């Protein structure tokens, strides 16, 4: 038609594009080759900078070339005058910025910038902060840039208050920003140092309340945004418990001393040394873990030399000093007694509320109230449900037990993908509650039957338990940590789906083991039981292995000391 522009057809365009691309590829490949050749030949000069910048300008993720550049720059540092170097660095900074514009999430580029700035005698940190601000303006969730910003802020000693204000501004713009919330969690303890707090210190209540309000606004606005919930959890979470010796147990007839710690550790390695004093004189002993593997563990034990337990004296005092943990514990074994112990009570120390903090319960109560309000509006929000459960546990695990179980049911229904995780969490909570109840009752008998447990945990807390009932659960194994139950005499684990018995080993006091209706397949899995010297009764009825031909003979051979084996 008249007056119309004549335009190349699409085939012509495509062909032109193809040729262009081919040309580009050729250039790229030849430049790469040239760089590698020069590097091999050790010709680290400015021409390498030029060549690599051609490639990196188009593809900043070529890590080897950044290495190459660093080598060249290091070489040139020695050769050039300060003025020449200054202009070289300036050019490098500009080049890096252009690469970041190509890919603002290039690991290599950000790392190179860190490296370069770290080498400068007088880096211009203000400019770097501005660069970060600009990149975060474009993408406020660019965690590479956040990383770099933290690096710069540390190097330039930017006051935490300023950085906090910066996170404020970004959260205001878009609160689903993990990096920004996380940065807050680093800055706030710095801004409000508390005298008696660990590295992850707590915040003063006024600050905490302000943060809670902020984060509440976020999860009420969008309850499906995880970032706010994670921050909420951090706010209510507490520091790692202080290192402590939780329990010390001495058994006279086994001539054995057992300790459990607040965290797993590897005794004997480097700094983790234990000092054992028997009647105020040091005793040299060999420490080992109950399962004999000597890996980091909550529980360690040692054999006591015969002399230290002589029945002649009215009492023996044992003291264990954990130097690195700055903790010790002492117990006295009186004449005529078979055992002695000293331990921290789980009830006093609220050991099991560690998911959320020991903050004033008023704070937790008000958080619980608002979460329940949110839950009414959003009955299917998993984050809200989970937070309610955690808050209830932090407030009073036993009081809220029933309610918690109901919330678990709802949560499992709305989040079936994480059903197994939730089952384990629920098991953990129920086990904790049972331990609390046992301690309140001041007994050494733990009933965990009919609790729908899927896993066992906190076994290091059960050092003193003599009777344990795990029947009618969904357990699939008795885990190695069970070996920590040094006083266990009777173990019932009927009606589970147990396939392995790794944990039933080296239990010095175990007399009865009841395992009917489980999934034990072969006699071989019972091998570990042989290491329990006092085991006399074993119930294996209803297990697949009972179908094996000649099973009784086989078992009698495998476990000669066990008097009665029911199959």
């Amino acid at each position, binding site marked *: *038609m*008249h*007056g*119309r*522009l*004549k*335009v*190349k057809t699409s085939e012509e*365009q495509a062909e032109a594009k193809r040729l262009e691309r081919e040309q580009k590829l050729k250039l790229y490949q030849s430049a790469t080759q040239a760089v590698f050749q020069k590097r091999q030949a050790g010709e680290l000069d400015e021409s390498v900078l030029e060549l690599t910048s051609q490639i990196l300008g188009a593809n900043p993720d070529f890590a080897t070339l950044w290495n190459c550049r660093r080598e060249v720059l290091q070489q040139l540092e020695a050769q050039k005058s300060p003025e020449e170097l200054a202009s070289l660095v300036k050019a490098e900074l500009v080049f890096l910025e252009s690469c970041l514009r190509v890919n603002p999430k290039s690991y290599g580029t950000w790392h190179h910038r860190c490296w370069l700035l770290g080498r400068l005698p007088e880096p211009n940190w203000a400019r770097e902060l501005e660069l970060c601000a600009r990149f975060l303006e474009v993408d406020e969730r660019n965690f590479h840039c956040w990383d770099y910003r933290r690096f710069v802020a540390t190097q330039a000693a930017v006051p935490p208050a300023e950085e906090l204000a910066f996170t404020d501004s970004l959260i*205001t*713009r*878009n*609160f689903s920003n993990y990096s920004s919330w996380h940065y807050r969690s680093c800055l706030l303890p710095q801004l409000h140092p508390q005298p008696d707090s660990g590295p992850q210190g707590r915040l003063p209540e006024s600050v905490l309340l302000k943060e809670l309000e902020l984060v*509440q*606004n*976020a999860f*009420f*606005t*969008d*309850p499906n945004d995880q970032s706010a919930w994670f921050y909420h959890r951090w706010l209510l979470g507490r520091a790692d418990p202080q290192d402590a010796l939780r329990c010390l147990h001495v058994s006279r007839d086994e001539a054995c001393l057992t300790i459990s710690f607040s965290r797993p550790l590897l005794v004997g390695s480097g700094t983790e040394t234990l000092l054992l004093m028997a009647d105020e004189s040091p005793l040299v002993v060999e420490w080992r873990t109950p399962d004999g593997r000597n890996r980091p563990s909550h529980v360690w034990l040692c054999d006591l030399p015969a002399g230290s337990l002589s029945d002649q004296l009215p009492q023996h005092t044992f003291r264990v000093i954990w130097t690195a943990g700055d903790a010790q514990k002492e117990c006295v074994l009186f004449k005529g007694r078979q055992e002695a112990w000293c331990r921290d009570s789980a009830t006093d120390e609220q050991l099991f509320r560690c998911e959320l903090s020991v903050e004033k319960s008023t704070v937790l109560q008000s958080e619980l109230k*608002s979460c329940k*309000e*949110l839950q009414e*509006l*959003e009955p299917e929000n998993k984050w809200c449900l989970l937070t309610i459960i955690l808050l209830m546990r932090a407030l009073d695990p036993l009081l809220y037990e029933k309610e918690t179980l109901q919330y678990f049911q709802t949560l499992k229904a709305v989040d079936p993908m994480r059903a197994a995780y939730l089952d384990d969490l629920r098991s953990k909570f129920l086990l904790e509650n049972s331990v609390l109840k046992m301690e309140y009752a001041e007994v050494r008998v733990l009933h965990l039957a009919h609790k729908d447990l899927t896993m066992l945990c906190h076994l290091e807390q059960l050092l003193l338990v003599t009777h344990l009932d795990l029947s009618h659960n969904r357990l699939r194994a008795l885990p190695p940590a069970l070996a920590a139950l040094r006083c266990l005499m009777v173990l019932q684990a009927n009606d589970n789906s147990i396939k392995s018995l790794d944990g039933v080993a080296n239990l010095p006091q175990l007399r009865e083991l009841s395992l009917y209706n489980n999934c034990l397949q072969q006699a071989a899995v019972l091998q570990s039981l042989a290491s329990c010297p006092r085991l006399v009764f074993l119930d294996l009825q209803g297990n697949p292995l009972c179908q094996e031909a000649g099973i009784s003979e086989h078992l009698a051979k495998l476990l000669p000391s066990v008097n009665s084996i029911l199959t």
Partner: protein
Amino acid sequence: MADSLPSEFDVIVIGTGLPESIFAAACSRSGQRVLHVDSRSYYGGNWASFSFSGLLSWIKEYQENNDIVIESSIWKEQILENEEAIVLSRKNRTIQNVEVFCYASQNLHEDIEETGALQKNHASVTSANSTEAADPNCLSTEEVSLSPLNSEVTAYQTPNSDTEVAPEVNDAEVTGKKESHSDDKTSEEETSKNKSTAEDSTEQLKKNRIAYSQIIKEGRRFNIDLVSKLLYSRGLLIDLLIKSNVSRYAEFKNITRILSFREGRVEQVPCSRADVFNNRHLTVIEKRMLMKFLTFCMEYEEHPDEYKGEYKAYETITFSEFLKTQKLTPNLQYFVLHSIAMTSETTSSTIDGLKATKNFLHCLGRYGNTPFLFPLYGQGELPQCFCRMCAVFGGIYCLRHSIQCLVVDKESGKCKAVIDQFGQRINSKHFLVEDSYFSENTCSLVQYRQISRAVLITDRSVLKTNSEQQISILTVPGEEPETFAVRVIELCSSTMTCMKGTYLVHLTCTSFKTAREDLEPVVQKLFIPYTEMEIENEEVEKPRILWALYFNMRDSSKVSRNCYNDLPPNVYVCSGPDCGLGNDNAVKQAETLFQQICPNEDFCPPPPNPEDIVLDEESSQSEASESSAIPPNSETPKENTNIGNSEESCE
């Protein structure tokens, strides 16, 4: 010069409003020979924007009831025996009830200056002071976006026309075409400059006071829209601007806040996720309920089973009744109804309300935290952008060029030509005429509605925050059941529509009575006249009005073509501005009309990449000589460099 116009076109477009301009651009883009004329001296018709002095002359024109129409009958001689003439109107009857109020202090010698400004128009007002010339924004944007078009325009302007209020003249001055100033004007400038410096010192004494003289003096800072509209960021116009690449000719700013007026208080409406999060007035529960409802609105169509099940029963009730069932506090109901859906309390159905809400939310976040954009330098920029595109592809422009009549062939009943003010007969195949150009005879049967408009210049924002540069939209629902909601748009100086330290406030509603009767109650609720400021400190919170203008504008939208008497089939009608907030109506009209003329053509496709243009010596030469248009290939490479920038400012 006029006789140099070619006498053959494919399309003649009469009127340079937005729909006409889009239509002209589309035709020109697809290769039609387009003649685009406007009897006025400025672009845009009722879509135009004026500097302050420009607006004063515009007012004067209507107040004086300009009947200086010289009836010439030369055209009658040109009508052949087998032809008929449809006479076009020479008088614009679309503006009525113009009323002006000045509250800013005007002492005697300032008065003199003002009258001077009125008589001589902007020329005396535009004291070319240094700040203005130094403003890089002012210079560059105007230069870039308009000057090529101007050269086109001036070529066809009658040489003896005194440079009137047209915005492009301002531009010419800014770009340094001082020759248009006569000597005595320059001397006047000198004196006004002297005066103004004297005033400045007194001004500093009376802090916060803005005198009328200052408004006059800085009159060119103003770009006052006759129609007050915004662009929905996912509306048809934005899509078209992007698709056609016309966006490169304009710059936009995001509206920064949505306001509501409730129980005598102006407050910000939280509409985006960030707004809701940051709002300090809502409780967390309200935040959740609002977010929940808004999320529902976003998706209400996507789950048809759910939504039918959920509110089938509500199909018969109004949106406001529906909101009451939605667990929203009265506060939130009000926000949603009036500020987000912007629907009427009594009349709009649930579905309409949900649709409007969804549309609002859909537009959120594309360019910012509100769904609206405003073109820098005013709404009047938009028709000009499309005119420019039309010109780039060979369209010919004549302002101050009226058409006396359409010539209709008796036998075929089709229009075949127009006769212009110089009696030149220009043939064409298609004719697009904007409603206001038709004579009373042609539209004797048409029932027009009216739009009530008010323009205020105020000294502060209706809602003060830490940033002065806010662009706000506020909907005030009608008080009586029969009155209409009033839309208030407040523009700050960074929109390049008013001088620093002032705000330009547009009020719009469908007319019930005269503009002043319709709008004054709302004005009184939100503002106080400037003079009351002497009563110290009482209600200082309210912005004070420095200057106010009321007028009614004809709303010719939604008029069926059949209502016009005896229109030949190849004469198309398009309407003036409608009362709505968006510009969809204009785009729809232009596209529909374009499809009628060019049924199989793409509507405003993107211009080709300059590298892909095949240069054919012969044809480009012959084209150039034939139409004397700017050859497209000379224009495109230059534009290409702008793409990045304009995209950035737009996205």
